[in-house]
């Protein structure tokens, strides 16, 4: 449990992450589960006293609910079964999914593979920066043609 979650919790969480952000149909963008965001979520949970009980309780509830359907847990369930359980969880543990979804977005949309999938370099902006066209300053011709717009005083 290097992440701070037990193996069972990690497995369930990975599977839930893929439900929040599944892989894109064109294959350009990975699912959140396969990006290894469990460590990121674990770190966020440790830093947030408000989030921690909601996530731990939600995972526990999800494992209990899954156990009634499959001995292999949440990750072994069908797509529909997972959706049903997450819907149920939204009622029994209302803080779980919003908190987890927020943290998932934070981790996912900073990941180099995701940036590349969106068509931008998977690196920090500095030191390479980006090219940007100066643009057509001739568009200002109608503005130049207008009279001055300030009051003399």
């Amino acid at each position, binding site marked *: 449990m290097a992440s701070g979650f037990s193996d069972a919790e990690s497995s369930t969480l990975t599977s839930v992450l893929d439900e*929040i952000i599944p892989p894109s149909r064109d294959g350009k963008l990975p699912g959140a589960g396969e990006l290894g965001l469990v460590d990121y979520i674990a770190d966020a949970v440790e830093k947030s006293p408000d989030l921690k009980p909601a996530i731990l309780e939600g995972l526990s509830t999800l494992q209990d609910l899954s156990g009634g359907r499959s001995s292999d847990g949440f990750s072994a369930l069908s797509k529909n079964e997972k959706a049903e359980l997450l819907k149920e969880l939204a009622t029994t543990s209302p803080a779980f999914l919003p908190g987890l979804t927020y943290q998932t977005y934070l981790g996912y*949309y900073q990941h180099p593979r*995701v940036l590349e999938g969106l068509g931008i370099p998977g690196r920090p902006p*500095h030191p390479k920066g980006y090219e940007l*066209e100066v643009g057509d300053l001739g568009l200002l011709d109608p*503005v130049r043609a207008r009279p001055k717009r300030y*009051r003399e005083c």
Partner: protein
Amino acid sequence: MPDEVVDVLIVGSGAAGAALAWSLADTRMKIVCLEQGDWMDPAKYPTTAMDWQLRGFGDMGLSPNGRGRPEDYPINDSESPIHVSNFNAVGGSTILYAAHFPRFHPADFKVRTLDGIADDWPIDYRLLEPYYDENARMMGVAGLEGDPAYPPKKPTLPPVPLGKLGETLGRGFNKLGWHWWPSDSAIATREYEGRAPCINLGPCITGCAQGAKASTDVTYWPVAVRRGVELWTRCRVREITVDENGMADGVLYYDAEGVERKQKAEVVVVACNGVGTPRLLLNSVSSHFPDGIANRSGLVGKNLMFHPYAMVMGLFDEPLEGYKGPTGCCIMSQEFYETDPSRGFLRGYTMETLRGMAPLSTALWGMSSGQLSSGEGHHESYQQLWDRTAGMVVICEDLPEECNQVTLDPELEDGNGIPSPRIDYRLSENSKKMLEHCVARGKEVLEAAGARKTYAEAPLGVAGWHLMGTARMGTDPQKSVVNEWGRCHDVKNLFIIDGSIFVTAAGVNPTNTIQALSLYIADKIKQNLANLFD
């Protein structure tokens, strides 16, 4: 130097303090600046690491109340719809500003005469013009000559790139026949005075790792220090002290170890911004000044002006490459800047277009606005938003009102036990009408540019970037705190040089004017050295 009396002691190393220190260095006087923050290391700015998108919400965020940096002081702004944004380091809030660098208009100094409200400044545009020019040389201002919204001025550098986003919005303004122009920006668009050129990193407002943005730690300060000015960091001033005649004789401050120290000075200059300056003055109580130093008028802390901001965003069909380029600097419009009473309000505003959102901001905005779904359909809904946003912030002129004020909070303190400021501020009816008008006009121009959907937030709560008016300038000691060259009416060796001394706020970002004023005041000090205290 516990017993040495320095000639000039400056409190605060931001936009104003840096410019004044540089200018006064000519005199070879002993000049010391005390700064509660430290030098920033640009190699550690967010854009150098993969978490660059998130750190703007954390240790490099706008609010001193949320950053968790020990050099910050907390501010109670719970009684204000606009929350203070600042930064405490060498360079002050220029570390985080967007570097939008417009000048005031000539009419901004004559508000009472022209529009019958507020007050005129005791100085005018023509007087400040050479200082604007000097400041442009020192900071390096990118822009384009010929803007019909301004008297002639020559930018020092080529304008920031329009990019596809700027062109798209420019066409929208043209369709309506409205004014627009590339923004004056304190950004080195080519190598300038040892600063590397802008490489379009994006988030200028979390510090510029390239050094292209003109924060004063990379412009004025290196030169001032080479000329002999001493800049002491991690020194937090508690109060200005006075001698038996009621003249300022120095300050009490806490050093980096928290040890209280006294520094004596012949002249004290306060440059702590429109909130930090009244806080320091009000904390400086003595038998001569029981209500705070230089406060016989009772106006220290009064007339606080923010700029009420609106944010108007549009969603476009085509990618706009909006993640590239200086966040806050692209093009601006002053179509609605000068007063037109038929609009239902006096004074006016500037539209300042923004670049688009980074990937994470896109997701968070999509989540909060209910446009981004999770689960199946997530990517499809995200692609509707990603790189399709463009918009603007609209900066409305605020007017001075005594009820909008900075006082000392009875309970809140900083890490050294110094009472913190409390803000009481409400929007005026004039501001509300102006905000309503600018949101409608903002949506109109975005739709003209091709936006299929528009969004607005007004007032923008996080936008307390501009802090002005709390130690106003004037010739009448009953109605102002400092005279027409920044000297306190009540204490003739105490000067104030930041946005506190603004009489009115104009409808543009204030940094350029703060620095022009600072250079002007420095010149007045130099010209009057022989009889400075008369």
